[in-house]
């Protein structure tokens, strides 16, 4: 049973409240990065050492996972839990793919001697992408639980959960939409 406040399920409003607390969290870090980068020299040289190709692949992966989870939401609304499970499973795999590529990127950078202590750019780089990766991991865990619930039929009692998980996942995607140009294109 879903508890409603007027036309809106409480869960959805609660998810938006949670996301509204995440906006200043990432916003403060991104603003600090922008301000320091514009006010200092040498950051572009540091960012040239990042692995652009991996970041581009990860951008495609995360944007595609946003599409798969919205498909899962649409399938759940239609009561088609077989399709919901399929799209949730794809979202989990894409999320794991993102983290695997990120780990590959980190290992290359660390192998070249670029550590969080290598300079303020690298501190920001590892801090921002690490915080984002933790959010991706949290999303994967939630999506995995929903995928299991879709397979065993328990999701039919709580179809709105796919929408709430989707809202969170899209937010994580939007954060990456800004991290990618800030770190790899600017």
């Amino acid at each position: 049973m879903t508890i409603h406040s007027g036309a809106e399920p409480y869960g959805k409003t609660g998810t938006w409240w949670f996301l509204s607390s995440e906006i200043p969290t990432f916003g403060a870090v991104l603003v600090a990065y922008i301000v320091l980068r514009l006010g200092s020299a040498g950051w572009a040289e540091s960012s040239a050492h990042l692995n652009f190709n991996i970041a581009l692949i990860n951008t495609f992966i995360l944007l595609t996972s946003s599409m798969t989870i919205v498909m899962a939401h649409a399938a759940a609304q239609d009561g088609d839990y077989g399709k919901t499970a399929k799209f949730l499973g794809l979202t989990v795999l894409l999320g794991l793919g993102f983290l695997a590529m990120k780990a590959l990127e980190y290992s290359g950078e660390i192998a070249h001697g670029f550590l969080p202590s290598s300079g303020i750019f690298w501190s920001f780089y590892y801090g921002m992408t690490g915080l984002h990766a933790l959010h991706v991991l949290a999303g994967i865990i939630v999506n995995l639980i929903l995928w299991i619930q879709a397979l065993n039929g328990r999701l039919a009692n709580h179809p709105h959960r796919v929408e709430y998980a989707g809202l969170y996942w899209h937010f994580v995607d939007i954060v990456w939409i800004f991290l990618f140009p800030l770190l790899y294109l600017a």
Partner: protein
Amino acid sequence: MSNAHSRHYLAIWYWLMALVILSVAAASTLPKLQAMVLIFSVAIVKAFLVARYYMHLKHERVIIYAIALVPLAFVVIFLFGLFPDFVFHATKP
């Protein structure tokens, strides 16, 4: 899931992919300032597409917009509040 929904979400995905390619092309072909303006404009458009169509903000009530936009406004105020600091006291190379 209706085919109309699927097609709609796929169309948004195609747009997102095309915009990523546009950003990358801009970074490698345009002069720095023009590239930056285009790249961050495209990032805002991509975020708008995800929020409006994938997060269904298009169909949400005013309260949801308020919950999402008030903290975003504080972040923007924070950014522009700090602008004078790096415009007038920036370290030059």
